[in-house]
Structure formats: structure tokens, C-alpha cells
């Protein structure tokens, strides 16, 4: 009798968990299905390669694709070296526990700070104080600071996962710390660092709030000529199409189409990263 009750508990419990998981997967499927089925209709070669026309109700989103591309590349290019060096410092050089703690709190605080606050910071400091105005540069810098903690945390973890054995072996052979870092630690951690960085590319590409006041423009036909130009961007475009303009019935399908482009980009990029990471874990011999 008692055994029975325990068995029933087990069956109920496990099925409850299965239910939660299946629902989660169902959410995902419904979500993706709706976005892709509604947006897929809009996607065409013209949509991807042309500027918007007829008051944003026709034509394509090419300037927004280009804008998001540059914003992403620039911000990662800015954040990457800072992130790597900070992680190297934290894992290899930081001696004082207090300082390390301060750095860690800073990084974690940055990581948890809402993106709209980055937007305010970018507006106050880059756009106004440094007079960059609404520009790709101001937006990229803002986004760079936003992903900096992501890159640091990821790189730090990658470095910490380098087996201590390798480091010991290198030092025991008479290598200096810098040599050990550059020749053993970083090369070993590199695949993990890069996959993490690729994932943060996806993150940057999809951020909207930080570029609201710093980089995004509603409409332009011209592709950016310099970093001081303002740009259209995919995520902002989705937002703008839904909340501004006078023709929602025509704008919503375009918003869906834009979302498909953005989502595909993000999913492909992070999918690649996850695949690499998965392969890497499989093939890892240490």
C-alpha cells in the first residue's frame, strides 16, 4: 500500500515535470511559428536589398540591415579587447582579494544593469557630453559597454576552464607568466572565448533600448558613410513600425518581416556558437 503511494507520487511528479517542459517547448514553437509564418510572407529579395518606400509601407529594410551590421561589428570590436584583457587580469594577475572583489562586483553590476540605463548613459555621455550626437559611434560605444561584462564573464570562465595542469606544465618549463598566458592559456581558451563572443554578437544585434537615444534613426535611404552618421537598425525598426506611423495595417506585416530577419540572424549566429561549443566539448581531450 505504502509502496503504491510512493509509486503514484513518482508518476504524478515526473509527469508534472514533463508537462512543464512540454509547455515550455510549446510556447517556443508557437512563438517561432507565428513570427516566421507572418513574417515569412513578407521576405523577398527586394525586402532584403531595398530601402523602404511609400512611407515605410513598401520596399525593404536594407539600410536597417546594414545599420545593425555595423553597430554590431563596431561594438564587439570595441568591447572585445577590453573584455579579454580584463578577464586576463582577473584570472592571472589580480592579487589583492579586495580589488578582485571590486572588479567582480562591477562586472556583475554592469551585467545586471537594465539596458535602458545604458541608453541614458550613452545619451548623457556620448551624445551630449562628448558631442557625438546621435551616431553610430555613440550607439556602438553604448552597446560596447553593455556587452563588456558579458565578454568578460565568458572569457573569465573560458580561462578558468583551462586545466591548471597546462599552466603548471608551462611554468615548470621556465615560461614567464605572460608567455604562459599568450601561448598556453589564451590558445586553449580561444574556442570558448570566441563562441561566447559570437553569442554576444546576437545579443548586441537585438538590443533596442540602448540605441533609442544614441544611434537609431527612423528613416534614411543613405547607407552610413562614417561612424558619425545615424543609422537605421533592425530592432528599432520593429519598434518604430509598431508604434509610429499612420498605416499599422501595412506596417505590422513589415514589422513581422523585419523580426524574421533579425531573429534569423540572432538564431543562426547563436546556433553556430552553440554548435561549436557542443562540438568543442565533445572533442575536448582534457
Amino acid at each position, binding site marked *: 500500500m505504502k509502496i503504491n503511494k510512493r509509486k503514484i507520487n513518482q508518476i504524478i*511528479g515526473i509527469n508534472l*515535470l514533463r508537462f*512543464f517542459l512540454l509547455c515550455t517547448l510549446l510556447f517556443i514553437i508557437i512563438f517561432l511559428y507565428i513570427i516566421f509564418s507572418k513574417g515569412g510572407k513578407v521576405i523577398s529579395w527586394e525586402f532584403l536589398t531595398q530601402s523602404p518606400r511609400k512611407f515605410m509601407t513598401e520596399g525593404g529594410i536594407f539600410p536597417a540591415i546594414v545599420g545593425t551590421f555595423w553597430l554590431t561589428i563596431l561594438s564587439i570590436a570595441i568591447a572585445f579587447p577590453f573584455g579579454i*584583457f580584463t578577464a586576463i587580469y582577473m584570472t592571472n594577475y589580480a592579487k589583492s582579494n579586495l580589488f578582485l572583489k571590486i572588479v567582480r562586483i562591477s562586472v556583475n553590476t*554592469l551585467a545586471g544593469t537594465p539596458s*535602458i540605463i*545604458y541608453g541614458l548613459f550613452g545619451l548623457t555621455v556620448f551624445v551630449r557630453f562628448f558631442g557625438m550626437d546621435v551616431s553610430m559611434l555613440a550607439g556602438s560605444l553604448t552597446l560596447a559597454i553593455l556587452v563588456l561584462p558579458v565578454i568578460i564573464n565568458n572569457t573569465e570562465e573560458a580561462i578558468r576552464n583551462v586545466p591548471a595542469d597546462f599552466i603548471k606544465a608551462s611554468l615548470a618549463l621556465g615560461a614567464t607568466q605572460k608567455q604562459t598566458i599568450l601561448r598556453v592559456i589564451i590558445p586553449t581558451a580561444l574556442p570558448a572565448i570566441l563562441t561566447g563572443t559570437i553569442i554576444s554578437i*546576437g545579443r548586441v544585434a537585438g538590443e533596442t533600448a540602448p540605441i533609442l537615444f544614441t544611434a537609431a534613426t527612423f528613416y534614411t535611404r543613405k547607407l552610413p558613410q562614417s561612424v558619425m552618421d545615424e543609422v537605421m537598425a533592425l*530592432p528599432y525598426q520593429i519598434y518604430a513600425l509598431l508604434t509610429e506611423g499612420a498605416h499599422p495595417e501595412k506596417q505590422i506585416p513589415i514589422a513581422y518581416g523585419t523580426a524574421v530577419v533579425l531573429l534569423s540572424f540572432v538564431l543562426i549566429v547563436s546556433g553556430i556558437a552553440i554548435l561549436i561549443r*557542443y562540438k568543442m566539448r565533445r572533442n575536448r581531450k582534457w
Partner: protein
Amino acid sequence: MKSMKTFNEKLFKSITYLATLFTILCLGGIIITIFSEGLPILKYSKLNELFGIAWHPTSFPPEFGFLPLIAGSIIITIGALIIAIPFGIGSAIYISEIAGNRTKEIIKPIIELLAGIPSVVYGLFGMAFLSPFLIRIFRIPTGLNALSASIILGIMVIPIISSMSEDALSAVPKNLREASLALGATKWETIIKVVLPSAKNGVVGSITLGFGRAIGETMVVIMVAGGAAQIPSSIFQPVRPMTTAIAAEMGETVNGSPHFHALFAISIILFLITFITNFITEFVFLKRKN
């Protein structure tokens, strides 16, 4: 020769040190910015007025009561957690404890992938699909309200809670599970009595992290929450979370006006809330080691 070597070593170390200082500087910059632009609101409005229940920044005289905005944020966030916790933790347990290796290898990346979906796309989904859907189901005047924002935010937070809880559960030593099973416990008993309690910190940490994420989310709420600055009496009413107020009103304020400072003051509150939850997550629940 040797001095060259030491110079190189020192130079490299200094570069990494400067990068680290830069990181701290960024945080410092953010804090200084929001405080120096936010605190001046006290020149125009007393502290107790700031925590009043009316947000009428453009009326005459303006009223800058933050409570409706804070309430909006908190209500939506709690709603999101109510949705995300069972689904997030439930699926984490299933993935970590019950699913076979095969299933795990497929589902885990899918959930991770989900975590990367841009919030504006969720916002689109909420605005263009969920909200009309809710109107039809509940026969309510607007689908842009606290409920739909909670649902969307909840879906957004599920992957965060799920993948972090999963990490915590997987980190529970295998030998604890074995000990329990070897004593004749069923899998369910092992999960409930041994694995979950052992992973408690990580699991709770995932919830506080989810809280921080949800309360700081801007695009979803600005698009879906409805935007009425009120303390709602039902979940079908629209609310105006702090992030919405900041993002939507910043453009309409005159630089240096009371309204401008009030928005920065809200960002201080928002920052403090996320800072504290973050701090709790990291140092109480995750006990990150050096």
C-alpha cells in the same frame, strides 16, 4: 636581456590592469551619470512627493509620484515570475534529472537559443498577436495590460531561470543521488528530498536573476504593458513600469527640466533594485568563489 623580459612582462600586466580599470570606470560613469542627473529632482519636489501615487509629469503643476511606476514594474515582474518559475524550474529538473542524454543534448541548446531572442521581437509578438488574442478570450477592452506584459516577460525569463537552475541541479554531485537511490528512494523522492535542496541556492539565485532581468526589461513593457501610470486594481489594467516611463518620455522632456531629472531619478531607483537583486544573487545564492 633580463630587464627587457621584465619590462615586457610589466607592460603586458599594465595593459590588462588598465582594461580592468576601464571596466570599473564604466560602472562609475553610469552611476555618476544617473545620480548627477537624477538627484536634482529634489530641488523641485520633496522626497515624500516623489513617492506619491500620481505620475503627471506634464500637468500644471507637474506631479512626480513614482509609486505607480514602481508598482507597475513590480506587479509585472512578479506576474512574470509566477509564470516563469514553475515552467523554468520544472523543465530544468526534467532536463537535468529525467531526460536521457539524447533529449538533453537537443533541448538544452534550444532553451539556450531562446534566451538570445531579442526582446523587441517578444514585444512584437505581444502587441500584434497576444494582445488581440487576450481581448477575444477575456473580452477586455485592451490587450495591452499587466497580464499580457507578465505573460511575455514570463516567457522571456523561462530560459534564464531554466538554464541557470539546470546548471545548479547538474552541479549536485552524482554521489548524493546515488546515495539516495541506494537507500531505496525513488527518483522523485531523490529529486525532491536530495537534489533540489542541494541545489537550492542556485535555483533561488536563478529566480532573483530572472527578477532582475524582468524588472529591467524595456522594450517588452513599453510595447505591451499599456502605459497607464496607475496603481492597477486588476491584472487586466494597463500599467506603466519605470522602464517605459524612461524610454517613452525622455524624448519629450526639455534637457534639464524637472521632468528630465525625474526620469533620471527613476533610473536611480531601477538601478538600485537591479543592483541589490544582483548582489544578492551573486553573493548570497551563488557564493561565487574567486
